[in-house]
């Protein structure tokens, strides 16, 4: 039972992901993405930042 996300296209950006794993909005700054989610009423999405797949893995996701 794993939710696998494909976020390589948006490395380093904040993304709004729907329940199917599709990115519906993205922005370099979290505040800008929150504003877009509110403006477009993308309230079925979940906001996270797309990691760099080649970067070292961090404890605490830092």
């Amino acid at each position, binding site marked *: *039972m*794993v*939710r*696998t*996300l*494909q*976020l*390589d296209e948006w490395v*380093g950006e*904040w993304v709004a*992901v729907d*329940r199917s794993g599709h990115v519906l909005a993205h922005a370099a700054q*979290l*505040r800008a993405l*929150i504003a877009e*989610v*509110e403006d477009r*009423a993308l*309230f079925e*999405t*979940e*906001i*996270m*930042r*797309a*990691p*760099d*797949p*080649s*970067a*070292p*893995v*961090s404890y*605490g*996701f*830092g």
Partner: protein
Amino acid sequence: MDDAWRYPYTDFGEGRDLQSGSVLRAAVPVSVAAVPVIFSAIIDTGGPLTVVSIDVLATADPHPEPGPPVLLNLGGRTYRAATFRLSLQLHPIDARNGSATPRPWLSTVAVIDPWPHKGTALILGKTGFLESFTVTFGPSAFAVEDAEAFEIRFG
């Protein structure tokens, strides 16, 4: 909470070069109460305190009053972090399975600015999350229940 809410582990795409397989995180959907914007939040069982980005706090209306600051070391840097009592809501991963009503709780959070984490805008720690819920980690999924579930199960 009538039933346990079950969640899959999330593969955000970290460490794709690793030979050991996927990097999986225990992440849950969380929002500030009465605000429909949902954030992915990592559960950090080793984290003593729940920490959030200032942009998450900014969605709260009304804005909560600050409490005493705390000094936190994150990523090799020391932060003087303001604390707040913030009303948060836990969401199920899939509203089709069980109740879709978000579960509210009042969380003590520390606000880190600038936000150092590369993954999510909230990290859920002992204070501010694990004191409010019973979380059971299984090999392939995890579940979140009411805080009382632990005492009922283990006495």
